[in-house]
């Protein structure tokens, strides 16, 4: 893994954008990395887009607000418009191609288009789409370990939802292997 991963996750409110970031940060912390998670809390949250900035680093995190990112995970078109230019050259963009219609303008990044919402729908639960995309991110960057991602699910999900964890991990693997 690079010494510092700066990840932006963005999409509509309700797609599990903030919790995806939180899971990633939690797993990073369990991997003994320095982590920060910062949600968008601006007026754009009301009925619109949501995003969060996650930093996972070998060293203490400076500003938790990112000016650029090493990886972008996007779950709708407006978020791609907003954040595409912030990805560093050689960085990575992962899109939910079920929902992002347009092509990527950047040629200097690694692009992964995954129909995550479609795959999640086939699994019978749309809420797994964010996890499928994280699967690809983890497979390509090793930003967190799979084991601690599962631990993070246990920490973040309330007890009554722990029965979902095997399915969440299945979704993660579908994304990893897509």
């Amino acid at each position: 893994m690079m010494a510092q991963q700066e990840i932006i996750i963005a999409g509509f409110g309700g797609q599990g954008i903030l919790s995806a970031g939180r899971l990633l940060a939690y797993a990073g912390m369990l991997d003994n990395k320095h982590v920060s998670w910062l949600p968008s809390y601006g007026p754009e949250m009301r009925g619109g887009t949501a995003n969060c900035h996650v930093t996972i680093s070998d060293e203490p995190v400076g500003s938790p607000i990112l000016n650029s990112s090493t990886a972008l995970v996007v779950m709708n078109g407006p978020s791609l418009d907003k954040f595409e230019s912030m990805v560093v050259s050689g960085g990575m963009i992962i899109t939910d191609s079920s929902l992002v219609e347009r092509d990527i303008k950047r040629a200097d990044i690694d692009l992964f288009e995954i129909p995550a919402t479609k795959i999640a729908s086939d699994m019978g639960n749309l809420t797994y789409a964010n996890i499928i995309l994280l699967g690809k991110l983890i497979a390509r960057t090793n930003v967190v370990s799979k084991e601690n991602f599962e631990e993070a699910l246990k920490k973040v999900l309330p007890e009554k939802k722990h029965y979902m964890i095997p399915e969440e991990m299945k979704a993660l693997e579908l994304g990893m292997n897509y």
Partner: protein
Amino acid sequence: MGEKLLMKGNEVIAEAAIRAGCRHYFGYPITPQTEIAHYMAKKMPEVDGTFVQAESEIAAINMVYGAASAGARVLTSSSSPGISLKQEGISYIAGAELPAVVVNIVRCGPGLGGILPAQCDYFQAVKGGGHGDYKMVVLAPCSVQELYEMTVEAFNISDKYRILTMIMGDGILGQMMEAVEFKDKEDIISPDKNWATTGTQMKREHNVVTSIFINPEVLENHNHKLQEKYALITENEIKVETYNCENADIIVAAFGTVARIIKNVIKMAEKEGIKVGLIRPITLWPFPERAFQKYADVPKAFLTVELNAGQMLEDVKLAVNGKKPVHFYGRMGGMLPTQQEILDKIKDILK
């Protein structure tokens, strides 16, 4: 230390207050600190505490006055416009020498301004936003772990000196999640509050808590007593972090969130052969003048970086006292300086 948890800054403040023995919270919601009230609403009933969503910020601060008068550890929290509304109560609490903790998760202003992070309430906090010759201790944490430790500390300082302590953060610190490790048990230092209005049981004279002293001789004596207390706090309670200051080409002064950005700038500058130091005031009042005096001869210049138009800048200039030029770089409106912007400014100064 216990297990490492990933928690939001605002929630950590609330949890820390409960751990410090605070059982009374009065507040009114405002972004970006409402999670403090959420957390208190949920947790206070579990510890036999009191949570009241007051009808206004003014009501909340006066409830704080009441609970503090009775000797309770008490907290209120708000963000900039709400803190302005509380100023009358803050001045009364200062006058009546009550221990209490106020959290200001600062947003950009003036007026309703915006909800994004800023440090534009520095003057209000350290120079007295309310009327009268008073001071309150102002703590400026820069991480979620520090939010925890300093909230506990705030209650201890307040009780020790019978003074109001403010924790000043910003929207980033309140909203972000970071790792935090709570101690198994807090070090709670709380002297006997024999001045509190707890009922005489017909066994002692009445205790009186007040900020009104109509007789000028009496009030001047009271003023002197307050000033002596402030001098004692200045002697005992200053907290500051100095980093990389020996042989620095330039020393940056920054507090809270901005200090984190500066630490990244220090690494960037190092790669270009520029040695940047950092003085991070942790107590904004009392201000760590001596740290600046100690290093005043070291750098070619000082640079103060803030999320405002230049407020702590004045205290830095007073402390440096003309020995070296003091420059300023600031962003406002909820905008943050990038590391590159600050590095460019540093290079410009050293040119």
